[in-house]
């Protein structure tokens, strides 16, 4: 059988593809709807762009809906995002009311589709209140939380909890992120797509275009961080680390590449702070990229000697996975999912300060054989654990489990079609 899934067989092996087809069989014809708040920008949208067609190919009636909102709505959800990840401040009650109303209006538009679905995946806090509107629902509803809510601002979490408690299950990326709730808390790490523009193999001509377009010197080391201009990603800390490395040569170049997602109003402000900190240093390249600059990001990661992800808070950190897939050692902040991907001294280094990052950059630039060895191990680690096929397989297993009852062991041959 040929199709999108078969394209992954040369990478992950035929047996993995066969397993996915087997797991999907009981779900054929089921209506599955995913809902989030942006079609472009950010890891969630990227994953959905690939998962939905794959589910369709497997015979599942999968679709993707996006809720809409105005500037106040996204200001509120950005504040929720920040405070759920640990910032301590209260969100004004009027904004929270607005958030609820916007969700209610979205339900007016989407309600028929959502009520008819067998399974609904609601991604992140933005559309979480939709469930409260769905009195006529017939299917199972799952709240998929992509962010780190391990130490949330209590009032924001309590507000959100009233919506989340009604779901049939939650999914968190790591056990550390799970809040105690009286419903099954599934743990599913996200993934990258090895065939997407962001990860597909590029030839040397493609890489030459990147060097040329951004004035980068192929003869000098390149260190990069690719992520939104967001304070939690600590771009200023990256610049500080780079300044330390510059003192020791051999004249490295830093690329800070990122964009802003349509649901992130704070990006411009952080970008300006980064520009000030860079102080027009010709070896610091700040690239503001559009949401669809996937091949450019791919190229930047591939021409990098070392990739940084010095986040202070992080959901999973898909940019780490992407860099590792390209055989790059990653120097990452001791935060969120970076901790399980970057295994100290094995697939990269975990650091807590700009000084720590500078120390590791210097070490790797001086020990090229270690750099190559760590990079190769990082790639193998991603191949085994963090590709889209594993993610799809876990989603399928979860859907089967939810539709057949929350038992410890589910034998598909015994339950027949669900």
């Amino acid at each position: 059988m040929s199709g999108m899934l078969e394209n992954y067989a040369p990478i992950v092996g035929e047996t993995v593809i066969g397993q996915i087809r087997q797991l999907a069989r009981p779900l054929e014809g089921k209506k599955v709807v995913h809902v989030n708040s942006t079609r472009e920008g950010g890891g969630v949208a990227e994953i959905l762009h690939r998962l939905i067609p794959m589910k369709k190919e497997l015979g599942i009636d999968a679709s993707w809906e996006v809720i809409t909102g105005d500037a106040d709505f996204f200001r509120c959800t950005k504040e929720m995002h920040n405070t759920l990840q640990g910032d301590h401040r209260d969100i004004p009650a009027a904004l929270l009311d607005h958030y609820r109303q916007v969700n209610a209006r979205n339900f007016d538009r989407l309600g028929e589709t959502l009520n008819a679905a067998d399974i609904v995946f609601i991604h992140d806090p933005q559309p979480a209140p939709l469930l409260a509107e769905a009195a006529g629902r017939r299917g199972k509803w799952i709240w998929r939380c992509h962010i780190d809510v391990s130490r949330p601002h209590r009032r924001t979490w309590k507000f959100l909890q009233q919506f989340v408690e009604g779901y049939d299950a939650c999914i968190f990326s790591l056990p550390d992120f799970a809040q105690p709730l009286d419903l099954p808390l599934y743990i599913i790490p996200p993934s990258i797509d090895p065939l997407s523009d962001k990860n597909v193999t590029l030839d040397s001509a493609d890489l030459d275009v990147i060097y040329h377009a951004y004035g980068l010197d192929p003869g000098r080391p390149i260190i990069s961080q690719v992520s939104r201009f967001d304070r939690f990603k600590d771009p200023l800390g990256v610049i500080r680390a780079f300044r330390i490395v510059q003192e020791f040569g051999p004249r490295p170049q830093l690329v800070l590449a990122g964009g802003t997602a349509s649901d992130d109003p704070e990006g411009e402000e952080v970008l300006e702070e980064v520009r000030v900190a860079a102080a027009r240093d010709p070896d610091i390249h700040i690239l503001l990229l559009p949401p669809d600059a996937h091949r450019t990001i791919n190229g930047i990661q591939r021409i990098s000697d070392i990739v940084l992800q010095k986040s202070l808070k992080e959901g999973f950190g898909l940019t780490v996975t992407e860099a590792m897939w390209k055989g790059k050692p990653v120097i990452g902040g001791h935060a969120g999912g970076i901790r399980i991907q970057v295994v100290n001294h094995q697939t990269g280094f975990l650091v807590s300060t700009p000084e720590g990052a500078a120390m590791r950059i210097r070490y790797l630039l001086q020990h090229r054989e270690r750099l190559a060895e760590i990079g190769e191990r990082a790639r193998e680690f991603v191949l085994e654990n963090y590709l889209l096929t594993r993610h799809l397989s876990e989603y399928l297993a979860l859907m089967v489990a939810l539709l057949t009852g929350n038992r410890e062991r589910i034998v598909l041959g015994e339950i027949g079609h669900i």
Partner: protein
Amino acid sequence: MVEPFAVTDCAMIAIASGEKAANLRELHDRLRRIDAPGIMYFHFWGGLLRPYFVDPEYQNDFASWAYHSLHDRYLAERLSVINPSRFEQMSDLRGEVIEVVEDRMDEPDFDPRIDGESPFFFIRGQLVVFDTGIRVDAPEQMARRIGDMTPGSIFYHFIDARRRTASGGNDFSEWLPSFGDEYVELARRIAAVDPYLASLVGLRADIARVFLERLGEGGEQ
């Protein structure tokens, strides 16, 4: 007529219990309080089916946490030699872990209240089992096909079987003697493969090697 070997596959999904332990005293408390068989199963065997970095020294989650988070090499070593295959019931395995932890807590130079670098999260696994439709008729055929099995199939037939079979062994060793006495030695050798020191891909290679050594490349004994 011997029944063909029905190749089965499985996928495990992890479910957080919401319980965690910051230090050894809390771990002890939670272990005594939580008696969910799925939790012990997940922390001793489930690691083989989920994202992790191969840690050849400490192959169960309790030992690994003791080493990496508490930095307690003594405790890690003692926990790592617990053989889960010896315990018919998960509650007995839990009792053994509690025993080792209590021994450590009793030692005068040790403070069980010191927090580790990161907490231990209690997780249970949910196993979805499905028939691949593949049937293997004879041991010689198995020798040629085992290399194509998924890690999930290896887990189901070699690890999970310990909980399902009357002998507490693996499905291959249960099936082989049906073909006659000459296959008993092969069954014994497969049963002797250590399931604890390799990833599932490594385990598959080990089992395949035993088949090939005994039956030869062409599948002849």
